């Protein structure tokens, strides 16, 4: 599979949130306003891209030679947690403006399963480094698209009169289901 096809599949047809159900928590939790949704989306994309390179390196150059592939889960989550911490410090030092816009969301990314899930699936499929990087960037963009669209939808939903029991998460989930149907239209397009 070429890089282009990997990118489009991960971005649209096999969208991380709407088709693989990963990263639902921030998708539902941080999508109340468009600008916070954008901030979260960019932060996730950033961490995903960098962590995928590190997890690839650690898996292929440390875990496999030593023969402890079963420790993957623990190794990856530690890599992601420490990377998030490091990125936070670097951004704080060098780009205070970026820090004020992304800073709040960075710690939350550690528990975003999309990041770990992408690192895992790249290893499971057996991609090389370039494909892994492409996959994780495209997955990040897919997350950004999904969360941004949902934030726009929720903005409209807030202004409408809906039954009390549907307020909050239930109606958001139903909006997400319609989005998932729309994204399902992309399936089979790029493979």
């Amino acid at each position, binding site marked *: 599979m070429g890089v282009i096809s990997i990118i489009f599949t991960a971005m649209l047809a096999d969208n991380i949130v709407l088709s693989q*159900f990963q990263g*639902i928590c921030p998708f539902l939790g941080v999508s109340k306003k468009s600008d916070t949704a954008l901030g979260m989306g960019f932060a996730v994309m950033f961490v995903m891209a960098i962590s995928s390179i590190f997890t690839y390196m650690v898996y292929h150059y440390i875990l496999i030679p030593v023969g402890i592939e*079963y420790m993957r*889960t623990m190794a990856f989550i530690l890599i992601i947690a*420490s990377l998030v911490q490091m990125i936070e410090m670097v951004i704080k030092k060098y780009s205070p403006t970026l820090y004020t816009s992304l800073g709040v969301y960075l710690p939350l990314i*550690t528990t975003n399963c999309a990041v770990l899930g992408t690192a895992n699936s790249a290893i499971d499929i057996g991609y090389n480094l370039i494909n892994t990087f492409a996959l994780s960037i495209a997955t990040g963009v897919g997350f950004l698209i999904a969360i941004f669209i949902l934030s726009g939808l929720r903005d409209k939903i807030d202004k409408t009169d809906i039954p*009390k029991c549907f307020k909050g998460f239930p109606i958001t*989930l*139903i909006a997400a289901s319609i989005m998932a149907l729309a994204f399902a239209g992309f399936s089979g397009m790029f493979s």
Partner: protein
Amino acid sequence: METLRDKDTFLNGLIKSNPDFVLVLGMCPTLAMSTNLLQGFAMGIATTFVLIFSNIFISMLRKVIPDKIRIPCFIIIISTFVIIVELVMRKYFPDLYSTMKAFISLIVVNCIILARAESFASCNKVKDSAIDGFSMGLGFTLSLSALGFIRELITSGTVLGLSIFNNFPQMLGTSSKAMGFIVLGLSMAAFNQIRIKNSKKKAGVK
């Protein structure tokens, strides 16, 4: 008195703060693994196991773990149990493992476990934490199984693989994914409705 409190802790996780419908934590495995009853139940049991033992260990070590690096410490403890689950499932349930593989290792980042570790186990006794882990896990298992039952019935007309309706039109893979969101949304709304009614009833009595 003591047993009454235990019962309270227990019921708390099951209904009053059910992880799926009230706290809305751990949505990713909820949506991804409730495609059928068996998968939902297995995922619930795996999560319950991790939840109970991570709660017990975190509660035991709560005075040793320094406050500043508590999150990484919690994550290491949790991931240890996730690896145990992974290895056990790969050995004894290879079929189930191969379909659930991606989400078993994602138990590590399941928000329920970290949330219970942070808000309950890190400031309560070992016994209470174990009960809390058990009840939260049971609440999670029950809601996953219920969702799995509904979704399996709707999308393929079967229960635990046995067909209930004859000539049931199979739903395509993509739309059965959208079905997950709809079923969860509707059942959450139903849960909310019951809660609203109950609170109204209580207010009326007063």
